[in-house]
């Protein structure tokens, strides 16, 4: 027991080492939050382009660009994308690592979110679309008032899952030496030569965050399901 206390003291209390974890947690949350926003925005736009093209045959060029984006992003590892953005695209300029991480993870997530949204839009019966159009709504109004609210409800579980993946995926940010939660734990390990405590602490924090987030998504799902009786 005393050995445990000593290790706890060494890893977290001595030299205020807990701050590596605390500050890292802040960075992880910040990157995840803004990457989720960017991912939703990008994913939404790409999904609208793709499904509009599928439904009407319009937006051919934008659809082509969207397909290239999806193919490249989904075809390469996120770590490689992160490295390319940091060392190649912004290689010659001094740039905030958090910004780079948000950009990389947001761009990456956007591709997956786009396909989730698109599947949601395409899952809505075409009769809903026709009913909207027959009342006199134009394409955009029909999408906004009738299709999107239903599609969003259908894809919420998949969307929640994507954000859980994103939150955990940010742990590779150490590759560009950004001090996120994982890197924070790893720095402690390198100072104390104790792998067990800091890494388990880091794992536990991720787990708790994912559990809280899963709970929140569940509540939102239940509220949106109020029309299914």
């Amino acid at each position: 027991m005393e050995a445990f206390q000593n290790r706890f003291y060494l890893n977290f209390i001595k030299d205020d080492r807990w701050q590596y974890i605390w500050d890292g947690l802040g960075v992880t949350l910040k990157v995840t939050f803004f990457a989720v926003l960017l991912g939703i925005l990008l994913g939404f736009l790409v999904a609208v382009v793709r499904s509009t093209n599928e439904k009407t045959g319009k937006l051919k060029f934008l659809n082509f660009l969207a397909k290239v984006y999806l193919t490249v992003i989904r075809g390469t590892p996120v770590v490689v994308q992160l490295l390319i953005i940091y060392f190649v695209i912004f290689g010659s300029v001094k740039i905030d690592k958090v910004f780079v991480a948000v950009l990389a993870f947001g761009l990456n997530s956007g591709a997956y979110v786009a396909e989730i949204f698109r599947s949601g839009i395409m899952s809505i019966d075409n009769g809903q679309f026709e009913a909207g159009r027959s009342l006199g709504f134009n394409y955009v109004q029909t999408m906004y008032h009738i299709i999107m609210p239903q599609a969003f409800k259908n894809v919420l579980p998949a969307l929640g899952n994507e954000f859980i993946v994103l939150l955990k995926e940010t742990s590779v940010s150490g590759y560009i030496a950004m001090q996120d939660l994982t890197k924070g734990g790893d720095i402690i390990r390198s100072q104390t030569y104790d792998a067990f405590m800091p890494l388990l602490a880091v794992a536990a924090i991720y787990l708790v965050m994912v559990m809280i987030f899963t709970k929140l998504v569940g509540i939102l799902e239940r509220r949106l399901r109020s029309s299914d009786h």
Partner: protein
Amino acid sequence: MTINGRTLIKVENLYKTYDDFHALAGISEEICEGEVVVVVGPSGSGKSTFLRSLNLLEVPTEGKIYFDGTDITDQRVDINKHRQKMGMVFQHFNLFPHKTIMQNITLAPIKLLKKGKAEAEEEAMRLLRQVGLEAKADAYPSQLSGGQKQRIAIVRSLAMQPEVMLFDEPTSALDPEMVGEVLELMKRLAHDGMTMVVVTHEMGFAKEVATRVMFMDAGRIKEQGIPEEFFNNPKDERLREFLSKIL
């Protein structure tokens, strides 16, 4: 019932072609204000395609459609404006499942006719009372029976104060005991002078309510006339065969 003659919908030489299949093979027709036109025919005869092309849910390959004197097949025409005046009722109701009955009815009047919420809801309640479903205003579509859903779908179209109502097999997806309540409402609409085009298999409705019955086969209108003529003295060979099978 008297027909007062003003042409509401005029169709000229309408074709709809899929690859080498003619869903519509040259239809020219006029529908006047106050008419109740019932379209019958075997499945695949093009009757639904014909109906759905009247508000351009189906875009014809060739031909013109005039609504209220405007050529709505013209690309420069804002079809959405004209669709507001052409109510449509679908076989599968297509109520919006994420909205209450009240929201289903008032959505288009509020967003498109720019009515105030209170005014739109008052009008909706008036219509709901007419169909005896005012108690369902706050319910969701999934809580309604098929017959109730279709009556709400009709009310939703009526809330836009259309000049014509298009019915695409409105009772085909209903349990038999619910067909009556929907036909009853349609009869009342016809009685109130609504111009209607109805694709249906309900021959009783055609006999009783139609001012004109049309028989379609292979993308063409083969025969049409007032119900007595149509049912008692059919001339077209294919129509006789059709009637002998269903009556």
